[in-house]
């Protein structure tokens, strides 16, 4: 065996190129077993620097693997974070950009818009919720740069948690007006209800996911900034999006989002 030719820089470029070229890769961990948690986040951060170089602006953070079911599937016991930039915003009414995605899947989520800065470690869910200015519903359209969504946790973190696009819902609600553990979503594909869930499926409570994000970023010397959006993680399983599919997410108090599969 020759020494691995992988590096943080190379991994970041390979994954960004894969995104640009809409071409799936195979697992990096399979070839580079030194890709541990710390290194995976270094790849993610290096890719963010490359994104900034091409003009992208950070608008927030997204969480992945926030449900127990997902954690058991992937074999981990905590969520992970990734970056959201302005190019990942899908304006309401726009279809899923199929030509720019490898194999998109949708997840309904509860999103926070921050009113004040949150810096871990030591952030509690209560404190985190107090920093939230308002809550919106969202549909995230994820896309993995790994073929068949076959990846390890480290691959996924390096790949910015399968980031793609997200569309925000029509209603902004103050957090104190919601019971987020019982805020439900009904997910429809072509008019058929395919899944439903509540905020409790998101790391126990979406505010727990937010606290986790603040604390895990804090360990890297980073903070969540006012005005940022935090996507707290899929409430249901991710559902593949065919071109032509009609998707809808109906939330208890956060309104409905309709999305064309492109």
């Amino acid at each position, binding site marked *: 065996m020759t020494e691995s030719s992988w590096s943080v820089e190379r991994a970041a470029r390979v994954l960004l190129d894969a995104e640009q070229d809409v071409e799936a890769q195979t697992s990096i961990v399979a070839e580079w077993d030194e890709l541990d948690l710390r290194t995976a986040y270094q790849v993610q951060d290096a890719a963010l620097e490359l994104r900034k170089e091409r003009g992208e602006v950070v608008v927030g953070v997204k969480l992945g693997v926030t449900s127990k079911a997902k954690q058991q599937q992937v074999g981990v016991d905590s969520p992970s974070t990734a970056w959201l930039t302005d190019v990942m915003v899908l304006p309401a009414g726009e279809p899923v950009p199929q030509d720019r995605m490898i194999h998109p899947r949708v997840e309904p989520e509860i999103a926070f818009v921050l009113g004040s800065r949150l810096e871990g470690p030591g952030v509690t869910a209560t404190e985190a919720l107090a920093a939230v200015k308002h809550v919106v519903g969202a549909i995230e359209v994820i896309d993995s740069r790994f073929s068949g969504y076959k990846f390890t946790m480290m691959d996924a973190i390096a790949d910015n948690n399968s980031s793609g696009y997200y569309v925000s819902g029509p209603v902004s609600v103050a957090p104190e007006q919601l*019971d987020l553990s019982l*805020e*439900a979503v009904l997910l429809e594909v072509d008019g058929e209800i395919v899944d*439903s869930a*509540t905020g409790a499926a998101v790391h126990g409570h979406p505010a727990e996911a937010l606290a986790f994000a603040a604390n895990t970023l804090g360990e890297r010397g980073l903070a969540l900034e006012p005005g940022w959006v935090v996507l707290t993680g899929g*409430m249901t399983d991710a559902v593949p999006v065919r071109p032509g599919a009609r998707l809808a997410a109906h939330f208890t108090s956060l309104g409905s989002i309709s999305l064309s599969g492109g």
Partner: protein
Amino acid sequence: MSHDLEGAVDRLLTAYRTGVPTDPLTPDYPDASLELAYRIQQAQVDAWVAGGDVIRGHKVGLSSKAMQRMVGVDQPDFGHLTQSMFHLEHEPIPAGTFIQPKIEPEIAFVLKEPLTGPGVTVAEAVRAIDFVLPALEIVDSRVRDWKIGIFDTVSDNASSGGVILGSTPVDVRDVNLRLFGCTLHLNGDLVATGAGGAVLGSPINALVWLANTVGPLGVTLEPGHVVLPGSVTRAFPVEPGDTIVATMGGLGSVTAVMGRAAEGQAHDEKEQA
């Protein structure tokens, strides 16, 4: 083995009596109709009523597309709820009451007016509801290992077992039937979440379907009766000693306690602790 109506009724009633499930009926009734299955169900209900039990409502089953696909049908089914199936919240349900119980969170409709199909609309169904309650349904199967097809479950009273109703009535007008959230905790762990619309798009659709399905059979849904429209989440197996809590947005919560295997045994454990 007899393959007529009486044979199936006898196998199912024997399973109730002995606690020993029967083999699946379907292989012995390969071409049997759904209509025969409902007659098998009705014969058991008649036997219970003759023995002093009282019909207190109905349940709708197979109320999600996923479950319907699993048994190869495109509509729900229904079963009867009798007095003896109702258990009190927080009161341990004696072990041995069920054969292979699973639990499901549901919104229970309690009727104030009779509903007679066919032709019942959503509007009429809503008007007929007195109030709603959070509920846990215990489904159970008299068929070994839950190896059920549509013929089995319909014959077996739609796999009914027990009902636990919450205690705080809410006006149906104050509930978002389609989008209320529901969490299900088993022994303190969150095991599932869902929205009311997971039940046939809205649980009210189950009530409408039930009224319109039993109407032509000469059955009216009666004032005071309880209708369970179907589960918001998938069903979870429960064991003696389990505590299950369902919490629903705008409806509060309901708790079911599965009694421990034997009183003496529970007592011993307590003394050792």
